[in-house]
């Protein structure tokens, strides 16, 4: 079931004035896929999720699950289906495992609310706990669980009623780094298996890329870009998205030629062969983003494009690669170099930049 959001607005009033949390957001969350809302804190992603859950009330716009409108600001009084009638599942940032109940009681709760018979409840709770690999934990009090186990109980509780829509509010942010990576992998497997519409809020870019079929990047209450993880990573359109995904190398220049997929940009470090300038006319001032893994030292005799003479300013060994700072003319570039190269700080070296890693931004 897809989630359709149309022209949604939400303003919070605070002592320092009003803050627009959502500005005219229009978005379709594709059915039976994992979609992430990615953005820095305060970008409105959690507000959007809470509006979908019915925990927050928008000011205007419309939210629909498939054909059923669950919130609408049209008319004198907003129409709203209350949270408990929206038939969703949700995993909270703090897990929200009820401390006065056992694991079984926590997971059985949504089924009891729907008035299912006792044996049906027992069967489905067992299934859900099996699914999250917590079989045998039924009688444990919720207070006796580790963070990772609480997280899985929260997931079991969210999916036990087989909702068509599952919402996640930064569910991994309270786990430590190692557990977070494991859980991410497991969550991806479970969500693919379930095939429900999942909407997942996070500020962690690697989490968003690893988990989702569709990534929606937000900033200051607006959607900046959306697409598959590969599209967002390899073919970003805005500097904000690049910077949020960790990119640091930006070069200003003038577009001199646009030949189908490829474009030439005149920059202070020389002419760069890039892509991503579709529809732009020559003469335009542009910013070129260079991915740090696109740079590599070149053999003196090679004839590759984007060949420059550079100097190694600093070289830091971080294990899997070198973190290098290179200088071409006055331009400084951060590069990830394979450890197979034998370079030294202060060394002059010819180098190439893979045109596939150079992208013209709007």
């Amino acid at each position, binding site marked *: 079931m897809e989630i359709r959001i149309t022209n949604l607005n939400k303003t919070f009033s605070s002592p320092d004035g009003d803050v627009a949390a959502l500005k005219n957001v229009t978005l379709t969350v594709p059915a039976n896929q994992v979609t992430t809302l990615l953005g820095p804190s305060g970008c409105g992603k959690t507000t959007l999720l809470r509006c979908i859950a019915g925990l927050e009330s928008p000011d205007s716009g419309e939210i629909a699950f498939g054909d059923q409108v669950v919130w609408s600001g049209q008319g004198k009084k907003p129409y709203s289906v209350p949270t408990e009638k929206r038939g969703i599942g949700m995993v*909270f940032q703090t897990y*929200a495992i009820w401390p*006065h109940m056992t694991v079984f009681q926590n997971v059985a709760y949504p089924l009891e609310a729907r008035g299912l018979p006792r044996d049906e409840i027992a069967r489905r709770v067992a299934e859900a706990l099996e699914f999250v690999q917590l079989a045998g934990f039924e009688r444990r009090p919720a207070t006796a669980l580790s963070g990772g186990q609480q997280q899985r109980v929260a997931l079991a*509780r969210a999916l036990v009623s087989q909702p068509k829509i599952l919402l996640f509010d930064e569910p991994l942010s309270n786990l430590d780094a190692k557990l977070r990576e494991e859980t991410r992998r497991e969550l991806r497997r479970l969500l693919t298996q379930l095939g429900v519409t999942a909407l997942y809020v996070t500020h962690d870019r690697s989490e968003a890329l690893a988990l989702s079929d569709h990534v929606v990047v937000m900033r200051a209450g607006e959607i900046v870009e959306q697409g598959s993880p590969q599209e967002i990573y390899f073919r970003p359109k805005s500097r904000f998205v690049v910077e949020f995904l960790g990119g640091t190398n930006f070069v200003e220049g003038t577009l001199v030629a646009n030949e189908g997929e490829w474009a030439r940009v005149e920059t202070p470090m020389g002419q760069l062969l890039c892509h991503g300038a579709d529809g732009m006319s020559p003469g335009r001032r542009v910013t070129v983003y260079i991915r740090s893994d696109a740079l590599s030292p070149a053999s003196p005799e090679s004839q590759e494009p984007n060949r420059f003479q550079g100097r190694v300013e600093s070289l830091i060994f971080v294990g899997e690669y070198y973190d290098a700072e290179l200088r071409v003319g006055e331009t400084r570039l951060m590069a990830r170099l394979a450890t197979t190269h034998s370079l030294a700080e202060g060394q002059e070296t010819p180098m190439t930049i893979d045109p596939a890693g150079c992208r013209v931004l709007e």
Partner: protein
Amino acid sequence: MQSGQIGTKWFIAVLLVVVGGLTLGPALMLVVGSFSQGLGAVGTFTLEKYARVYSDARLPQVVLNTVIYSFGSAFLATTLAVILAYLNFRTDIPFRGVLHLLPVVSMMIPHLAYGSSWALLLNPTNGMLNLILQEFGLGPINIYSLPGMIFVEGLLDLPVAYLVIVAAMASFDSSLEEASWVSGRSRAATWWRIILPILRPAILAAITLVLIRSISAFAIPSVLGMPGRIEVLTTFIYRLINVGFVPDYGRAAAVGVSVLGAAVVLVYLYRYLTARSERFVTISGKGYRPTISRLGVWRWPLGLFVLLLGILLVVLPVLVLLYTSLVPYVMAPSAEAFRQLTWRNWTQVLGDPLTLRALRNSIILALGGATLGIILSTLTSYVVVRVRTRSSAVLEALTFLSFSFPGLVIGVGFMWLFARTDLYGTLWALLIGYVAVYLPYGIRPLTSTFIQISKDLEDASAVSGAGFFRTFRKVVAPLALPGVLSGWTLLLVMFVRELDVSTVLARPGSEVLSVQLYRAVADALWGRVAALGLIMVAISTTLVLIANGLASRFSRMGKAG
């Protein structure tokens, strides 16, 4: 290092002796006295006092009244506390300021004066509200009844229950509630299945705390219970001591031991429950932010309810006292009444040498007692928080014991303790009694202060070469100052209106204001009661303002330094 440890040991030993003497001393005297023949505390063993008092035909009714009274107050106070705490922390309720005011008021107003103002409003013959109700063909409501007493005691204990519930509500992760809505439960079902069960330990703790206070409450039963001949254990004990030619301390002690026993059980129950409640709420972890839910159409009705409660609890009683203090005799407000306004009650109260002496005594006791009490509290709570040995655990248990002390009952123990010394009948006797009974109220805010001061700060001082006492003076004490001042303020206002211990220990020459107030209540001199009550409110308010001024000055110094 070695000498430092020995110093600490001695320090704890001295504290144990002092705190133990203050708490176990009077309790033991009470028990010993109840089993001894004769008027003094020590004599031949006898069960005669028990036999006589427990065969008293009135006792079963008194016990029943006490149970109804204290449970009634506890349920009323706790129910209101849960509703108000939820409205304050979780909703967009208007008139929020009223909610912040509520806990302060019953701290400041003498309970005798508060009870009196309700007697003036709702006594069955000419209560001001009853007169208004009669205009509409309703009433009269009789405040001199068990429900009336429960109503007033419940309102007075509401702040105590409120503070306990708020502590749990403030750390209640709101997504616990939201997760229930998402699971398909309505708001009402969520209250029953999630909110109340999670708050249950805190709710039980609040009930227990109010039970302890209302079992040992003397002011309201004496103002509102005695006229209607509704006796509870405290007024029963009071009559044994103060009515008749010879005060019967022996029988009072024999009953008092049971009251004390019940209170001690409740105190340790309370301690167990608060520990449980903390375990329940600490689960929420990081990333917690409270969300405010909209009350919608209920917003203004509930807001008006809160406002009404504020008026009922604060404005009305104070206005009634002010009005009563300014009319020559009790009469309903009318044009005629306002023509007769007079300062007579005020000039009489302030011209009475006995009252002036009581005023001086009360201020001396409040300042001296609060200062002594807070010094002892600071040292004790520091040891309890930081020094984790068996003797510090004993120290903590001892301070908790005095939490249960009904002032009137333990006062008898103190009286016997002082009877053979020069302290008997002096202000020192009252001072020691005050500090002993109210020690936990100083210790509690300080314990939480010390828990918040990182141990590293002290270790850094030790590493820099400072010993235990130097570290305490140079590092710990300055950081704990805000907590010390707030504890000091709390003790000040409690001592200004202290009634229970004073009733037993005050003698001619060591009268205090509340005892004078009690005499005026007993003689039904309502104008004087009102004037004196307001004077006591004014003294507390002045002292609190001074303490707050000091606190803000110190905190500025802290920022500059």
